[in-house]
């Protein structure tokens, strides 16, 4: 077993609305990533994927509030830290975060090189202009970006190039964990592939130690990450290796997600897509029992009453469903 880069135990966070209502967007999430591994997080819109990403950084500002749980980055517990302290010591050199519309965040009046200067300055690293340029050029070339990009403004770059630049800038301090929230969703397929290739290179060359990749595109996750975790209504419902999750999902929700995959491959045209009926529950008042029960094809009366706990079934596989593994196999085989 490799060294644990990120460990999260029973993390709970909430949003407080302006009517002082609590919305539990991340509820009892535990996860861990080892060195050199990547983890994908999948789920519907509004299931808490992006909130989880924000919560993992330990960087809380209203309306997001921390309730309980531990976040341990490379052996250091950051869950009690103040936002200012987190920004100074954690963001950038321990955890790097790429939000959804990252490429629109580049200031159009500055050259790319000055963003790198800003990152270093924020972490009190002093480099002469020439050293900075050399270091940046070396890093950019290693990642397959031309070093001319450094002297350009953001408006001169294409969407895919901007996104790759953002990733290169945010990982310049070799963070231990990179959290990427839908880094390629706004791009066309070819640029998407370039972004993915670059993220693989970051891992292979050791610039980042581990990665969390958030998206709702399952075929992409399958190809990028080692493990996949499925989230539903603020909770994790299943975790396993990418292959197991795509071809042999256990939790009914994960199964429903996998049935909605569309890929351009021979034979997939005749497979009927199955949709999950209904909408996710309101997180202001989450259901008492299983959160998925209302939409579940296999729900029993007990599902509405008892909230199931996460069950570890060995081999890195865990799920949150009351059905036993034997019963699941039996039920699914009848379809």
């Amino acid at each position, binding site marked *: 077993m490799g060294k644990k880069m990120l460990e999260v135990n029973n993390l709970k966070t909430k949003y407080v609305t302006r009517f002082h209502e609590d919305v539990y967007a991340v509820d009892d999430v535990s996860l861990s990533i080892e060195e050199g591994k990547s983890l994908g997080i999948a789920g519907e819109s509004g299931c808490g994927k992006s909130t989880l990403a924000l919560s993992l950084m330990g960087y809380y500002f209203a309306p997001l509030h921390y309730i309980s749980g531990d976040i341990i980055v490379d052996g250091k517990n950051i869950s009690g830290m103040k936002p200012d302290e987190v920004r100074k010591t954690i963001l950038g050199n321990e955890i790097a975060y790429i939000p959804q519309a990252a490429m629109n965040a580049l200031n159009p009046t500055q050259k790319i090189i000055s963003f790198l200067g800003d990152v270093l300055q924020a972490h009190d690293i002093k480099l002469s202009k020439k050293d900075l340029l050399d270091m940046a050029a070396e890093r950019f070339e290693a990642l397959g970006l031309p070093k001319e990009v450094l002297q350009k403004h953001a408006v001169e770059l294409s969407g895919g190039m901007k996104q790759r630049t953002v990733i290169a800038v945010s990982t310049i301090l070799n963070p231990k964990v990179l959290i990427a929230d839908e880094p390629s969703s706004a791009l066309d397929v*070819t640029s998407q592939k370039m972004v993915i290739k670059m993220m693989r290179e970051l891992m292979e060359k050791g610039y980042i130690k581990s990665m969390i990749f958030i998206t709702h595109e399952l075929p992409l996750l399958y190809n990028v990450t080692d493990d996949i975790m499925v989230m539903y209504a603020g909770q994790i419902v299943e975790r396993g290796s990418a292959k197991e999750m795509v071809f042999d999902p256990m939790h009914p929700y994960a199964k429903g997600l996998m049935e909605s995959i*569309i*890929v351009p491959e021979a034979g997939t045209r005749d497979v009927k897509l199955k949709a999950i009926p209904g909408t996710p529950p309101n997180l202001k008042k989450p259901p008492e029992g299983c959160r998925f029960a209302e939409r579940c094809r296999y729900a029993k009366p007990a599902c509405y009453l008892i909230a199931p706990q996460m069950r570890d079934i060995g081999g890195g596989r865990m799920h949150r469903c009351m059905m036993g593994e034997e019963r699941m196999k039996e039920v699914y085989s009848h379809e």
Partner: protein
Amino acid sequence: MSDGKMAILNGKGVTKVFGLGDKKTVAVDHVDFSFKKGEIISIVGESGSGKTTLFKMILGLINMTEGEMFFQEKPRDIKGYAKKREYWKNIQAIFQDPFSSFNMFTKIDSVLLDCINLSGGKNLSKKEKDEKMTEACSFVNLKYAELTNKYPFELSGGQMQRLMIARIFLLKPRILMADEPTSMIDACSRATILDMLLKLRDETDMTVVFITHDIGLAYYISDTVYIMEHGKFVEHGSAEEVIINPQAAYTKRLISDVPKIHEEWDLSTVS
């Protein structure tokens, strides 16, 4: 498959040029197409390939620089607003962003009521109109009783997109143009929307034209696929032909760039 079917919309040498002189951009370059009745067609291309320009020309929102279109085998005449309105009774659209498709000051009932009035139900009694609206909502798995007196922004993205389909259900156009209708909603709602569109096609025999960059979606839903590159169609044919056995280099590249689950995804093909 639909060789015996009537062509509903044909295009011949359709061209759109933006700008003049040095700044001239040919967005759509002499394309020919033939959409048949009851067929589902996908136009696939990357951003900037001119697919949205073509979409707007077919809808009659912008003029063609050159070329002709034939609606039901007669030259299409949409000069003037009155004729355009007449044309729009036959052709409707669903857009990418469900949030901006609705007038935010209008309640949902009146959106649906407008559709009934437009499709010739102006003289129906209130009860009949209510029945029609309930039928349209239940077609898309929405509850009409829950929607009355609500404004569009009170719905989720998936619900709004379904409401768009309810509108189409009431209007029953000959052609439905859909510009990336599922790119802003997540995978499981996507399946619902696609199934509804297929059901709608089966019931009313309308032609559905998808504009998309998602090849997987095009393969799943369409009978005919057109691949567009730099304003030209590089390849067209049945979905099976084009996507499983592509001939053009561009199509091959597009397909190889999509992540798959049964085959290895080759990352070395990009620089």
